[in-house]
């Protein structure tokens, strides 16, 4: 009974990992590759670790496998978010079929805001310089 369960889970897990790697080869764009890879690979490794938890009749091994799954589910989206943000900021091109880039507008506003701040800073520095010149006179 346990063997059948392990067979089913490990097959689904290995197939999920295989689909993730096919996706990273075939997808046309970095962002699509990222979105395909992280979820499918996490699912596959999670299922394989569930197999290990079923296979060893030991509480410590089950706890360890659950800890690894928990850690993977916790950290994989964070790492994917970080690397996706870096890719967007460094100007990685999108696929020509991309229809909508909602971040573009937000960052346009932010860039304009940064420009305003820079102008304010320059004006303040000029003011300080002028007052110093007035003092020295």
């Amino acid at each position, binding site marked *: 009974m346990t*063997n059948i369960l*392990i*067979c089913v889970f*490990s*097959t689904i*897990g*290995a*197939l999920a*990992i*295989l689909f*993730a*790697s*096919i996706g*990273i*080869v075939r997808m046309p764009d*970095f962002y699509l*590759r*990222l979105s395909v*890879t*992280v979820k499918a*690979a*996490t699912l*596959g*490794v999670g299922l*394989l*670790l569930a*197999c*290990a938890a079923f*296979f*060893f009749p*030991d509480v*410590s*091994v089950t706890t*360890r*496998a659950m*800890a*690894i799954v928990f*850690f*993977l589910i916790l*950290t*994989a989206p*964070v*790492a*994917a978010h*970080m*690397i996706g*943000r*870096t*890719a967007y*900021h*460094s100007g*990685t091109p999108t696929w020509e079929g991309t229809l909508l880039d909602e971040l573009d507008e937000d960052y346009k506003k932010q860039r304009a805001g940064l420009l305003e701040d820079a102008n304010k800073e320059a004006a303040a520095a000029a003011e300080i310089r002028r007052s110093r010149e007035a003092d020295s006179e």
Partner: protein
Amino acid sequence: MTLDLYFDYVIFPLLTISVVLVFYRLFKGPEVVDRVIALDLIITIGIGLITAYSIRSGQALFLDVAMILALIAFLGTIAFAFYLDKKK
């Protein structure tokens, strides 16, 4: 068919083909970030391979190695993202 034979003939070949496919993207990847996620995926598949091998050989100790590898993969990706962000 025993579980060991099933792992030898189905699970390990599937995982190995996956690693080879991801290596293709690691070598080809047009941008640095492509290579970073390919490396991350290779380490994740490595965790799966270690788990399958620990089931196949009956040694639960290998799961500790898988845990350390998960930690290193996360830290590596974060570090790559941090320094690529700083570079521009």
